[in-house]
């Protein structure tokens, strides 16, 4: 095994071009487990921790450019306002020790269906900034996950940053597990209200071969909210609409039975999380409306 230690992003890209099988390592919270348990013996480890840019973020008008290695701890502490869904998701990652090391770039690189960041990214809307010596491209998050632990990256590409759309409304994230800390999601659900476009986006984790959006549910809810004038009147959403939304979210799942839970439990739980997160976000939307309009 060779340990490659690029001092700059350009050096990292050159190394990845020369050794496309090199395994990038930043926080190490996935890669080192694989190595410790002898599940993988990469020929090259490509250490990205010397590249300072990857630990920085910029808040723009529309989105946050989040460096691939910004630790979850930092996202929780510093980006709760701009990226509430991702901040909540970050807080559910493992433990403080892991959150101090791991970041969204690694979550995307591993592309596990159980990765905690994915539902939040899908719900908020995001683009992955991938780069190689051939150039840079931005991969829409909807096209990024291509299979179980597979993503759209080319062998010579590295993830430099993620551009996450700034919240324009309430966002929520919920995860099912046996306890609060150190849990790999049995299933997870992210929901973002987008009042500006009168739309709703979702993200479902650990309930299909890849993280997915519940698109039919999103379209149904957007139409129902529109039809009932809910965005304008700020009324409590009709229970039957909430139920239908939850059922459609459960229907978007394609889960498996495994050690963490059965397929039918996952489907059921995703429905429950969908109902809860919709209720929470909608209450929050109604609250902010009341504040901004000054009504009692």
């Amino acid at each position, binding site marked *: 095994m060779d340990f490659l230690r690029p001092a700059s992003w350009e050096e990292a890209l050159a190394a990845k071009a020369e050794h496309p099988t090199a395994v990038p390592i930043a926080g190490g919270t996935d890669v080192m487990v694989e*190595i410790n*348990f002898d599940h993988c013996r990469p020929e090259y480890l490509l250490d990205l921790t010397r590249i300072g840019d990857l630990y920085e973020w910029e808040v723009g008008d529309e989105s946050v450019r989040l460096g691939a290695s910004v630790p979850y701890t930092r996202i929780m502490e510093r980006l709760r306002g701009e990226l509430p869904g991702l901040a909540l998701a970050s807080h559910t990652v493992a*433990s*403080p*020790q892991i959150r101090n090391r791991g970041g969204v770039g690694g979550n995307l690189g591993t592309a596990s269906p159980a990765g905690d960041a994915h539902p939040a990214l899908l719900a908020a809307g995001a683009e992955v900034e991938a780069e190689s010596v051939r150039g840079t491209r931005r991969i829409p998050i909807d096209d990024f996950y291509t299979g179980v632990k597979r993503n759209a990256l080319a062998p010579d590409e590295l993830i430099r940053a993620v551009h996450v759309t700034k919240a324009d409304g309430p966002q929520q994230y919920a995860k099912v597990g046996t306890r609060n800390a150190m849990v790999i999601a049995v299933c997870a659900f992210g929901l973002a209200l987008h009042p500006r476009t009168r739309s709703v986006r979702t993200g479902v984790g650990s309930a299909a071969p890849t993280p997915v959006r519940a698109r039919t549910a999103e379209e149904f809810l957007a139409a129902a909210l529109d039809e009932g004038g809910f965005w304008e009147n700020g009324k409590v959403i009709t229970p039957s609409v909430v139920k239908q939304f939850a059922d459609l979210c459960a229907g978007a799942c394609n889960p498996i039975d495994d050690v963490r839970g059965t397929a039918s439990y996952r489907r059921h739980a995703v429905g429950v999380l969908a109902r809860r997160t919709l209720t929470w976000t909608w209450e929050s939307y109604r609250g902010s409306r009341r504040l901004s309009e000054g009504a009692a």
Partner: protein
Amino acid sequence: MRVNFTVNGRPQEADDVWEGESLLYVLRERLGLPGSKNACEQGECGSCTVRLDGVPVCSCLVAAGQAEGRDVVTVEGLADHARRRACGTAPGTSLDAARAWQPRGTGQDADAELAPVQQAFIDAGAVQCGFCTPGLLVAADELLEHRPNPTDADIREALSGNLCRCTGYEKIMDAVRLAAARQGEGA
């Protein structure tokens, strides 16, 4: 490969390090510092917790090469680290001193080789088999460094990555509360 880094305030060099080796392995097997414990090797249990450039991490998930040039504090250097925090300077802990370390703290000795948080764990009876203790100490010490008056929720959160399988966590909670209270009195 060779890894040069600072361990407990002293420069150290580890040789013949395999590229896929963890920082935990280097500390225990190359430097002879067995304080950081090796249990799950997957970041689940926190018993290998050390400070890497001040930040608590699972040393089993840090590749040895990633520690190059970095600053590591292990449980063996916790007393020295606490002294440095309190007085601004401390001599660091040599490998020999770390290897010869004995838990002799009684609270009366001004030169006690224990950090306040270690003394609190002893006084509160927060140690049972002791395997999880080093990781808990490093995590608890870091909490008290940044949050001198933690709430119970803060303590639970800070220690949520450290598993104890002997018993519940009540004595451990007591110990951290005790250390915080003593820290407050001393200030």
